[in-house]
């Protein structure tokens, strides 16, 4: 039997995959069958009845199975007893669908009329007005008048907070269950539900806090009416005044595609401001979903706390200065200390800035003392070799495939990856999760390996060894190992939970070797599409920082540096001794992050920043940088997809793009005139970084038709997520795709000897110490505060109860935290969340 089926919709033939729903098949030929409850990313439920159409099937002879024909040779058709829902019926050979008959028109008008009987029709004050499926479909299919007596209308609550982030207008809800199904089926947080029944059905939640889900904002996109709105955007603007600008998630390495809805606002002094963030479709990256941090976390860009002018230290005080003065001061300070200069960068800024920064430090100052500040995870050089192959899409993983996740809590770190891995598991992929403590992803795992504290490397090494021997043993490790090696496709995620930076390097290599193992057919996973290693980087552009050579030992494109420089820890130590005398910090705050106590013996400290951070306060020059919302550039996501973002809002103060500032410093240092546009920086960069060869701003902006077909005029189909018109980005190929590298020789993977209570840092999506996220007022009530998770026995011996405030002494710090004793950690281990980052595994004391 063929996998394709041809049907006819209003006389037009369309051939689609077997099993596709009529509504989708019709969509492929631009026949927009109206829907409310149906959503292409969710299983059909056939409840709104808007999609009723006539569906006929060829009549077959009972005995022979032959299609019976009319005298004119056309097949005889049986249209059944009545109308059918196009969203629940699957295509069948020879099917004929009619969507323009009188019956269909009447049914559509009837459903609209029914829906409007209890709808308030308050479109003039509704946030959805202008982009509302109900409004559009009423225009298209409604009868224009209602016979319903308005005095009989129900009055219901209009401003019901379902939580801090989402408000419900009960009168507007049309009971399509898109929101409840999204929460239950797509993201597995069934925290909203229907209450009562019949006409009294209403959405409610009993979760604590209300609407407790990292995905809640998506329900406002897919709600086909204005029933669900965000606390952030409610009554903020009318959709038709908004100008969409494409951008990227500034937080996570998934690189979710987004759109800013911007508007020129009088109350902002005529500036263009961000009114809201919506997802932008990229089926290979985030499909049409974003998490709430991505949606609500943008406020730092427009924060009144932003630095607006260059600052130069005079007489011990940081005072405002002109750009020229400040740039000159930087050039002087750096030149003065040329033999002893170093640079540290964060991993949030653009590739363009990173590229120029390393160029400035290496070429301009002749220093190899260049590193990522606060690096948590190593292995960029490893993913360059065996990373997820070009053309891969996690959406394609399913039955027969396998995913391994080691030392990461994806739900907290990169929710989009958590979602896509979970969905792959639901489609049948074998999921193996290894970690020192339970994480949410385990719920979907076929195999869970909980290793002891400090045993991540030995446990993964054991897995690798089990995978090497072609054993038929039935111990869980062998079974899991075999299922990984023999899977059709294998994707491995690794993170840094409980691991030191050095250990993550070894971990990456162990896992690389797993990908290089040959399966039964003599084939390795590495290098094949939908296979490879993904580092769960801590930030949105950690990958870019690796690619651009923000590393003491690698130049852009992973070229080894002949004489490697110092890493961050050494640089900071050298600043104390005076061996390093000038330090350039690009968006880095080592003082605030607790890695640097003071200036030490630095002669010159320059900080390029958004905010007056603790480090900035100590600087000689502070250069006010723009946020990603104000300019353009590229980030490279953890799947090594290089993607563009675009300028959306007016410049804050006199701030300048990071790349431009660096280029201007370079010019003052005698590096010549720098590029005058981000696109030109990218052009130079693409020449210098072999992996980026052939990419430019135009190729990154290319789009192609995606399925499902969302956005555009038919808002009702996919919700208000935007069609991607600004670029799908380009993935760069891992080395293994052209030639399989040799397996790595592995260093020490022995179990360490441990004593006492061990502590690890546990990621929290809304980490309360995060400088950027704290600027988002709507998220403030949800910010994770310092919490230490303890096992019952560890709590008991310390006479600590659930909810007690305790002191945590770790890594030379004393942190006050709330104790959580709820069975989520193994004995002997404490997990600290919502605090500043604590690397690796640390011996800790916890007491009241």
């Amino acid at each position, binding site marked *: 039997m063929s996998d394709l089926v041809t049907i006819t919709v209003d006389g037009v033939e369309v051939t689609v995959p077997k099993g596709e729903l009529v509504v989708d098949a019709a969509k492929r030929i631009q026949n927009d069958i109206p829907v409310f409850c149906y959503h292409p990313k969710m299983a059909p439920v*056939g409840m*709104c009845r808007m999609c009723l159409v006539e569906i006929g099937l060829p009549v077959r002879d009972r005995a022979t199975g032959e299609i019976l024909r009319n005298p004119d040779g056309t097949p005889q058709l049986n249209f059944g007893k009545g*109308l059918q829902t196009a969203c629940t019926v699957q295509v069948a050979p020879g099917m004929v669908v009619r969507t323009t008959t009188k019956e269909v028109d009447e049914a559509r008008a*009837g*459903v609209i009329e*029914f829906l409007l009987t209890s709808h308030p029709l308050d479109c003039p004050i509704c946030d959805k007005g202008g982009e509302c499926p109900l409004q559009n479909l009423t225009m298209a299919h409604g009868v224009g008048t209602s016979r319903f007596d308005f005095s*009989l209308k129900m009055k219901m609550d209009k401003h019901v907070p379902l939580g801090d982030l989402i408000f419900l207008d009960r009168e507007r809800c049309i009971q399509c269950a898109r929101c409840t199904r999204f929460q239950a089926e797509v993201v597995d947080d069934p925290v909203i539900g229907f209450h009562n*029944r019949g006409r009294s059905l209403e959405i409610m939640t009993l979760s604590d806090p209300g609407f407790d889900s990292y995905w809640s904002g998506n329900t406002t996109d897919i709600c086909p009416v204005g029933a669900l709105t965000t606390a952030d955007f409610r009554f903020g603007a009318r959709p038709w005044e908004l100008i969409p600008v494409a951008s990227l998630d500034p937080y996570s390495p998934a690189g979710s595609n987004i759109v800013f809805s911007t508007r020129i606002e009088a109350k902002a002094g005529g500036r263009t401001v961000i009114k809201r963030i919506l997802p932008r479709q990229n089926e290979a990256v985030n499909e049409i979903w974003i998490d709430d941090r991505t949606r609500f976390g943008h406020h730092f860009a427009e924060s009144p706390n932003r630095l607006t002018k260059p600052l130069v230290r005079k007489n011990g005080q940081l005072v405002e200065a002109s750009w020229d003065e400040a740039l000159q001061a930087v050039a002087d300070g750096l030149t003065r200390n040329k033999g002893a200069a170093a640079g540290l960068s964060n991993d949030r800024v653009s590739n363009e800035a990173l590229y120029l920064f390393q160029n400035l430090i290496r070429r301009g100052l002749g220093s190899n003392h260049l590193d990522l500040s606060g690096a948590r995870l190593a292995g960029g050089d490893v993913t360059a070799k065996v990373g997820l192959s070009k053309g891969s899409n996690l959406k394609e993983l399913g039955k027969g495939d396998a995913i391994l996740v080691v030392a990461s809590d994806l739900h907290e770190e990169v929710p989009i990856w958590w979602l896509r891995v979970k969905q792959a598991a639901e489609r049948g992929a074998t999921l193996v999760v290894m970690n020192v403590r339970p994480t949410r992803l385990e719920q979907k795992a076929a195999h869970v390996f909980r290793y002891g504290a400090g045993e991540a490397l030995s446990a993964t090494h054991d897995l690798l060894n089990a995978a090497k021997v072609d054993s038929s043993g039935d111990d869980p490790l062998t079974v899991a190992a075999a299922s990984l090696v023999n899977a059709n496709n294998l994707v491995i995620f690794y993170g840094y939970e409980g691991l030191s930076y050095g250990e993550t390097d070894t971990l990456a290599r162990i896992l690389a070797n797993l990908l290089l193992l040959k399966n039964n057919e003599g084939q390795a996973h590495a290098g094949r599409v939908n296979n490879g290693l993904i580092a769960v980087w801590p930030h949105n552009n950690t990958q870019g920082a690796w690619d651009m050579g923000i590393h003491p030992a690698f130049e852009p494109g992973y070229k080894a540096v002949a004489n490697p420089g110092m890493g961050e820890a050494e640089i900071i130590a050298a600043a104390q001794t005076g061996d390093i005398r000038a330090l350039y910090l690009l968006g880095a705050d080592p003082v605030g992050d607790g890695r640097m106590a003071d200036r030490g013996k630095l002669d010159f400290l320059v900080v390029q920043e958004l905010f007056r951070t603790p480090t900035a306060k100590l600087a000689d020059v502070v250069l006010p940088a723009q946020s990603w919302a104000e300019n353009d550039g590229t980030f490279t996501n953890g799947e090594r997809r290089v993607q563009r973002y675009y300028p959306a809002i007016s410049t804050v103060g006199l701030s300048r793009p990071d790349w431009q500032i660096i280029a201007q410093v370079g010019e003052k240092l005698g590096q010549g005139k720098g590029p005058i546009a981000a696109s030109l920086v990218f052009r130079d960069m693409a020449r210098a970084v072999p992996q980026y060869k052939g990419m430019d701003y135009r190729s990154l902006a290319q789009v192609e038709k995606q399925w499902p077909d969302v956005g555009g005029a038919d808002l009702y189909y996919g919700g208000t997520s935007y069609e991607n018109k600004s670029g799908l980005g380009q993935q760069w190929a891992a080395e293994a795709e052209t030639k399989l590298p040799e397996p790595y020789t592995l260093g020490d993977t022995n179990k360490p000897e441990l004593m006492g209570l061990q502590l690890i840092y546990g990621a929290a999506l809304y980490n309360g110490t995060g400088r950027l996220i704290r600027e988002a007022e709507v998220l403030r009530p949800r910010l994770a505060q310092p919490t230490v998770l303890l096992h019952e026995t560890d709590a008991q011996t310390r006479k600590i109860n659930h909810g007690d405030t305790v002191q945590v002494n770790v890594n030379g710090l004393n942190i006050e935290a709330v104790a959580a004793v709820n069975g989520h950690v193994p004995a002997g281990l404490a997990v600290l969340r919502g605090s500043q980052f604590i690397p690796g595994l640390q011996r800790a004391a916890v007491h009241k």
Partner: protein
Amino acid sequence: MAHLLLRHREIENIKKLDVYRAHGGYEALKKVLSMAPAEVIQVVMESNLRGRGGAGFPTGLKWNFIPKVAGDKYVVVNTDESETGTFKDRELMEGNPHQVIEGTLIAAYAIGAKLTFNYMRGEYMDAAYAFEEALKECYANNLLGPNILGSEFSCDMYPHYGAGAYICGEETALLESLHGNLGQPWSKPPFPAVEGLYRKPTVVNNTETLANVPLIIQNGAEWYKSMGTPGSTGPKIVCLSGHVVKPGNYEIIMGMTYRELIYDLAGGIPGGKKVKGFLPSGGSGPVVKEEALDAPISYEGLDKFGSAMGSASVIVMDETVDMVWAAKKATHFFKHESCGKCTPCREGTFWLDKVIHKVDSGRGTANDIKVLNSVAEQIGGKCLCALGEFAKNPILSTIKHFPQDYQAKVRANG
């Protein structure tokens, strides 16, 4: 004639296992255990037994739809009985539970199910007691559990109590409710025979349907078919209520007329009043006028009158009844019981209810009658499940048959 289903009426304590057995109980099960499952299905098909839950689907055919491959399968007994005017399954469960259990076991054997549930409306206390007592006896006597009567056949049976929702009588809503979800129906396909309880092949049968099964097995299809009409074989319990002298359950052989039932068996109408009309299947079937009294009680008997026997809950209304009032009561029921899942039913029943209340209270206009009629039509054929289809009936059929009652109510308002 002695009762075949309501046997407790003659045989005292037939709800006790020993009494039931003394009167031939569980002989059919014994017989079945030596037959091939396919043979059992064959006999039931030949008997022409049709579902007593309302839709009248051929029971043997339904069993035959179950895939004949190994794997989990279930039988679910539908004792949700919440249709207005229906109380037959209650009496069966209270009086003669073993016959239902035996029928259920035969169904389980025929389709290869090892686990069965009886979904009983939560309000039916006495039925529940009787059923549970009977189950205990069965477990104690090797009629349930492993290796029933020494055979290879093992089967468990448990009660499951609803909590007050008419819609849970609809088979897919019932299964959802049993899953622990909202009792809302799903859009078929998938049919329960393919994906039912826990997404496994499932037979859902009405209580009374299953009570017929031991009779068929015991006495053969021919014997069974000799009762009733060709399209409606066997005995049927009719729930008679409303304006009759002796309301209650009547076990009849299909083919008897409504007049015979009401006048000969139930003593006619109190006070010698005339019948104005009757609802042949509770609130859900269209009302018929007195002229339908001579129609046979059978699946096809009311075709001519635009109505149907359904589950045979006959509500009789004498000449004093205002049909607008009756339509209001019935419509209120559907509005109250609409699960809210699909638009036409949720909004339509709400709308109808509002307008019929208005008309009934004397505030309506002639236009309201038009609205009632067209809104009811607009619900028809567009709903997710049959509840919505039922909901249009009281309005449409009363307007059609008793327009004068409506006219009388709206006259004053132009």
